[in-house]
């Protein structure tokens, strides 16, 4: 198999999905952000965003903290070290493949 094609096949599928790629890219540029920010920036609806975040959390890429801002519940999200490394690796492989 062509090495470039093999690189493409090796891409992390958890991150490769467009919605999750947007989430991971946004989170990689900040210390942490809340659910509303991700919703506003990605334009993904609440249910789908929640589902993507669950997958990323299960993969150990995103840490979720439930808290309150005044009386309003707030979900804070940040990329874990594993998530950060996986994203860097993903970008490197994608660059090689392209």
């Amino acid at each position, binding site marked *: 198999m062509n090495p470039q094609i093999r690189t493409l096949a090796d891409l992390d599928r958890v991150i490769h999905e467009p919605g999750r790629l947007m989430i991971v890219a946004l989170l990689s*540029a*900040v210390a942490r952000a*809340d659910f*509303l*920010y991700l*919703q506003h920036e990605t334009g993904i609806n609440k249910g789908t965003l929640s589902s993507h975040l669950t997958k990323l959390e299960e993969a150990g890429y995103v840490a979720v903290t439930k808290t309150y*801002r005044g009386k*309003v519940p*707030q979900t804070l999200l940040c990329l874990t070290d594993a998530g950060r490394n996986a994203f860097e690796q993903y970008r490197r492989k994608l660059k090689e493949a*392209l």
Partner: protein
Amino acid sequence: MDQIRTLLDRPKLYNNIDGVGELGASILCLGYSLILLLIMRSPAESVWHRSSFLFFVGMLLLIHYGTKAVKTRITYPRTGFVEHRKQWRTAAIGAGVGALATFALTVVFRRRWDNSMLASLGWVVLATGYGYNAAKALRWKWFIAGAMAVASLVITFLPVNFVRAVGREFPARPDQAKFLGTILLSAMVYGALLMISGGISFWLYLRHTRPPAQEGQ
């Protein structure tokens, strides 16, 4: 890859999405001008001379906590909360490059230019930094940056007597009247331009975002 790059830049652009940062900077410039003006126009034994540093620190605290309060009450409930990564290295490199550029320009122009011209040059460096940062998000901010640069040039070439007259009544530094006049005029103009730019951004932000519904985020 370009789209990923764009996504990585989004949080930086979000920093001034509401124009509150510019409004804070405008209050800093206008407040500084006001303090300077009060020092120039009041007797040497007045409270403005003795406690100007305290007023300045008070103003900085007011801007810091005021900005934070607006973000907490208006921005975060509408478009979400972001905590930026502490990028000390980038900040240090930026500050270093800015300082070096100013130093180099000062050395180059020192012989032909006086202090007030160099002060104007410093303001132009600020305008360039502002344009580079703010215009990444909104192109029309280049007009504000351009207006700042033009204002600095106009102030530099204003009649000397007029600029001296602005700064003449500062008892401690009578020889520096033109320099102080330049600083004062520049701070006032930059403050006004930042106020206009920040005000427009804030108004547009309020128009294009909805107040929060009482539900979880």
